[in-house]
């Protein structure tokens, strides 16, 4: 596979303090790759190195086969939404986009006007095109920042918490846009967010950074199945039955944890093969089991578990 983003053995030190430890990951064309981690994990530092804003202490950080810090042409194929929106408050939304369009080499006025209209409509800000950005709300500025990042139809997008400060509608818009761009136009996206539900919906693969180290990486499904133990919800005929069963299963050696919720019990077991064993043991011990259902684990639970362990 041809990699659009290549990070190999990346190390970064600030005044002798190591903040990135030998990071390695690759992102292919049209992939949406999520970089997750708690505050101070090294996500923004990794993005900054890839963008050429910081120099790596050692290792490789390439985008489209080259270093962005050294190649002006490569930089014109990359779009970014960073923590700051990169907008000029004294200029209108249209003027802001016009400036960036010219910087990215859209020379013809007609072509520029057409593209600005397209991206403004895409983020739902065309009606506000003549309003100064200084008068925009946080959410509107974030939307305009996304339009700015898309103005030159980039091949690679770096989105550092793009939904920060956006309302539910805005968040859905960003998710939809990112998915559409990656699937239909083959745009590669490096995405960071603290909203794990969002990451689960948007990203095809993720890497979890903790303390400057990648502690897990892969597809969301593979991470969930690899790093989380199976959770089973068992329904009983009465609350008393459920309470008794909870007490009973706590004594089983393959049960990790167990909680009683009314007529049901939520049971965490060691492995997938323990689920039929659990039901079997309950039935054999005389408990009247109505239903036993495996609960789908969320990325958030895996994330919290891994962060806690790390």
């Amino acid at each position, binding site marked *: 596979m041809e990699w659009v983003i290549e990070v190999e053995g990346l190390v970064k030190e600030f005044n002798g303090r190591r903040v990135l430890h030998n990071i390695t990951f690759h992102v292919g064309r049209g992939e949406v790759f999520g970089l997750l981690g708690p505050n101070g994990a090294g996500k923004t530092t990794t993005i900054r190195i890839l963008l050429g*804003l910081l120099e790596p202490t050692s290792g490789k950080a390439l985008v489209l086969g080259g270093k962005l810090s050294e190649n*002006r042409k490569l*930089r014109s194929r990359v779009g970014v939404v960073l923590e700051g929106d990169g907008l000029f408050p004294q*200029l209108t939304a249209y003027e802001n986009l016009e*400036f960036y369009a*010219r*910087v990215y080499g859209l020379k013809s006025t007609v072509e520029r006007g057409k593209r600005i209209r397209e991206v403004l409509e895409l983020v739902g800000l065309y009606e506000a095109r003549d309003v100064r950005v200084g008068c925009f709300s946080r959410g509107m500025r974030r939307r305009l920042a996304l339009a700015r990042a898309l103005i030159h139809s980039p091949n690679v997008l770096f989105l550092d918490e793009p939904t920060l400060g956006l309302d539910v509608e805005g968040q859905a818009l960003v998710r939809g846009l990112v998915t559409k761009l990656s699937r239909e136009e083959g745009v590669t996206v490096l995405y960071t967010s603290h909203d794990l539900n969002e990451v689960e919906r948007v990203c095809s693969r993720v890497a979890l950074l903790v303390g400057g180290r990648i502690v897990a990486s892969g597809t969301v499904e593979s991470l969930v199945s690899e790093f989380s133990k199976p959770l089973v919800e068992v329904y009983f005929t009465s609350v008393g039955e459920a309470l008794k069963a909870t007490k009973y299963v706590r004594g089983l050696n393959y049960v990790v944890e167990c909680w009683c919720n009314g007529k049901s019990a939520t049971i965490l077991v060691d492995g997938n093969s323990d689920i039929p064993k659990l039901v079997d043991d309950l039935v054999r011990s005389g408990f009247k089991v109505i239903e036993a259902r495996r609960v789908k684990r969320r990325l958030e639970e895996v994330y919290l578990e891994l962060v806690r362990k790390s």
Partner: protein
Amino acid sequence: MLLQVVVWREFKETLRNRSLLSSVFSVFAFLGMLNATTVKLPISVDSIILYMAPCLGIIVGFGLSTRFVREKQEGTVETLLCTPLTLRELWLGKVVSLTIPSHIVSVVLTLAFICLRGYTLNTLMAVYLAMVVPVVIASTTGLLGFLYYILGMREVRILNYIVFFTLFAALYLVVGRLTFPTILTWCNVGIVLALSLVIFGITYYLIAHLSKERIIASIS
């Protein structure tokens, strides 16, 4: 080409910025007071041209140069550095767009003051105002911009205090010298121009060798 784009955008921002208006008003008020307090004293027109004009331009330029800091604080510079623009283009674009309005304000107000006092300009004075004063303003705002880029936010605040009090002291000295006869010669015009060009040249060289990491590290 890209420089032109940056200058045009900076211009629009400068003209819409209230700090231009407040800088012009401060300079205007200062000149008004100066005129009122020295109305009966003989003032050397050469001194006004030689010292006062660049000083006024630097004051306006200093007022406008806060844009370097604001772009850093808001993270805009980070986004700009990810575009095909180079740091030198960004810096130069800002310096040019800050110098032109500062120059216009300083020349117009200096000429107004001179006319009000009934003096006339000679060729050397005109050359100095038209060609040397903008270089002085550009070298000062350029150096300030460079320092704003490399310094952390706390150091920037300290720098602003230092510049403010230096300008205040310089104005005090200039006003004190206005009644002394100074002669504007091609020699002292040349010295001022050469010094300004050297400062501008050094800053121009340094900015090209400034790493983006230095700027990013000084933001956080």
